[in-house]
């Protein structure tokens, strides 16, 4: 029951809460591990039995499938016996599960989806499937996306004054990442021209063939800053080490990432935009206000 309440809280009972799930299920075909959200649906939660949960735990919650990261003013010699005491008893008789692998493949064509939601203002979310952070093009693409978002914010919020915000988010998973530009329109503004403006701005980056050095330096400063901020607290540092181990088999991946950030060139950024933000390879979700729909939204 609490999982169903979590689902309602995150999706149906939150403004635009169902958009992300629609993007991912559209982006990845039925059968792909990312087609469904990790929490499932209320119907799937209803079908879950205690046996299926036990089976899942026995298959995946294994010592050989887990990493423990400890960060803090502790000594390895003091910690190791405690780890052995509390974690050493966990059985590892089951075989380590095979990693799920797929080949990265961009979307074949743009998909347009219209949603209705009981919200005050329309929203347009444009999403691209891009390679994950382990891929060499990750930072070049991020360097291309950031100025694109700045430019769109200027276009929609400052100049045309039709939007309250333009946001950029990239959700990085092991097999692929999804980057989304969200344009939060003002009430009663039309979403019709949003996609064509985004296409124009991407087109101009592609035509230029490279970012200018000032922009590149600003983006670099931002990424270096956020990378350092990302290891300031113990919990963030632990998360960074855990992610590094999980994705790169390197607990000190932060250091490598800073070198990757430093190495991005203006041409690489423009190339990545050209390669992965193609005009025909995205999911476009347009949310239109409708008082009879759930707050989270539903597909029309």
């Amino acid at each position: 029951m609490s999982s169903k309440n979590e689902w309602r809280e995150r999706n149906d009972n939150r403004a635009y809460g169902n958009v992300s799930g629609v993007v991912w299920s559209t982006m990845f075909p039925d059968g792909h591990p990312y087609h469904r959200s990790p929490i499932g649906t209320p119907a799937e939660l209803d079908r879950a039995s205690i046996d299926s949960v036990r089976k899942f735990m026995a298959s995946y919650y294994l010592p050989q499938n887990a990493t423990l990261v400890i960060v803090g003013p502790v000594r390895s010699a003091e910690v190791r016996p405690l780890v052995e005491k509390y974690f050493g008893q966990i059985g590892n008789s089951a075989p380590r599960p095979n990693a799920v692998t797929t080949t990265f493949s961009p979307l074949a064509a743009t998909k347009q989806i219209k949603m209705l939601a009981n919200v005050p203002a329309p929203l347009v979310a444009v999403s691209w499937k891009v390679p994950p952070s382990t891929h060499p093009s990750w930072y070049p693409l991020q360097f291309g996306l950031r100025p694109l978002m700045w430019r769109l914010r200027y276009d929609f919020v400052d100049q045309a004054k039709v939007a309250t915000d333009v946001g950029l988010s990239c959700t990085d998973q092991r097999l692929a990442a999804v980057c989304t530009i969200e344009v939060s329109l003002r009430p009663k503004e039309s979403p019709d021209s949003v996609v064509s403006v985004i296409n124009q701005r991407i087109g101009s980056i592609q035509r230029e063939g490279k970012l200018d050095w000032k922009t590149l330096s600003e983006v670099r400063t931002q990424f270096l800053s956020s990378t350092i901020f990302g290891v300031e607290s113990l919990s963030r540092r632990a998360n960074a080490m855990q992610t590094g181990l999980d994705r790169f088999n390197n607990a000190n991946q932060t250091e490598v990432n800073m070198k990757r950030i430093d190495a991005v060139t203006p041409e690489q950024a423009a190339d990545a935009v050209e390669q992965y933000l193609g005009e025909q390879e995205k999911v476009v979700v347009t949310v239109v206000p409708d008082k009879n729909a759930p707050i989270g939204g539903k597909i029309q």
Partner: protein
Amino acid sequence: MKPMRVVFLSLVVAGANACGSAPPVAFSVTDRRVLPPISVGATSTTALDVAPEPLVLAEQKHSSDVKEARLPNGLRILVLERTAMPTESVALVIRQGSVHAKQGVAALYGSTLLGREEREQLFYLGADREQDVGSDAITVRAHALAPLTRSVIAAFARSLKRPGFYEGDLDDAKKQQRNELQESLESPTGAAGSQLRQAVFGAASPYATRTLGGTTASIDAIREEDLATFHAGVTGPNTTLAFAGPLPLAECVRIAGAYFSSLSAAKVPRAPTMTAPPTTSQITILDRPTASQSNIAIGFSGAAEGDERARSLEVVASMLARGLSGRLALKVRQEHGFSYGVSADNANYREAGIFTIESSVESSKTAESIASIATELRTLGTSVPAKTETTRAATAAAGESVQDQQTNERALNALVYLGTYDISLAEFERRPGLGSITPEMVQRGVSQTLDMSKAQIVIVGDAAKIEKSVRDLNLGPVKVVKMPAGSGS
């Protein structure tokens, strides 16, 4: 742990010499430095031992490492020098908030204080920026790489010399504020929170009426003169500049002097008129027929800043609702599965306080959830909790409080707090840390403050599904009203 090597190369900073006649600063950073492991003070080294007693900082007192100076115009400078990381967190605290102005003015002032150029400068510096318009103060914070601190301060100072609202976009800013207000009131949690403040503080209290961005009508009524009047109250004695990071006090004073010495030295009196909180309970259902859940908000008149109950109630909030192990989470989520979680918050303002408990629950379990919460509060108000539970709650609360100094960003919270309430370092030092809160103080805090006979309860949900069972609880009179205009009703 092996120190992490961090390489900074050619950080180009926009707007480097941006503040009038202020001294030029070299921003080109070509540096190699080593990040030492982060120090977290007196944390126990037995952190993995699953012993019954918690392990962290519950006994730690407030920091005595904060240093202070004042400019001749009265501007207060607070510095916590920490060299563990090459970042600096800075805050500009203006001790003038929503209760000191016409409705909606402080929010509009806060959102338009930084001009577009200043916002862009902070953005390009890679600074994490945050603006908070509170009841008692407006705070602008930035967290940036330490060599860029002067640029951040320059942006702050330039905004105070010529705030962004003079740029001619006032109508646009008002439109933005109306949109934000509408969005907030249309969300179930936002609507519940707004209604709850009015119920707890009393509809006429400045802490109820002058929060959020005002109302559509009050925003429409704001003129540039209102913002200018508010701006005139931003004087030296009314302002604090706080630094947490590697810059020593002398350098911070030098930077502050270079940019803020022209601020007026006049003192501005401020004393909002308070109204008495309600003395009987009341339940309000904001009807939202399509709701898939009920959003419950229960509020009590709490402790003002400086009230001795304030620290106890911090521990109470932690004991009731921290993570999955708080009492209410165990009851409402773990035992019954009514909800994904329960939160509790103890907010202390200069003249008043509010303690809130919130949860989103399955519609059919609305009344049962409220009953469970009420039962738990009565239990805690009549029986002293165990010492172990109290210490655990205090330890967890310390991690969320002004005691937490794990990063420069978090360490800044204590300085912002001192600036917001104009608390002297000596007074801060004298105040007990959360570790000194006893089980008896917890029980007393609950019995004195979280009295269900005075509880204000707001539920956003489908009245047709929940009204009868809520009335049957007999916790107080029930009124049903529609959600605000344009909402999900």
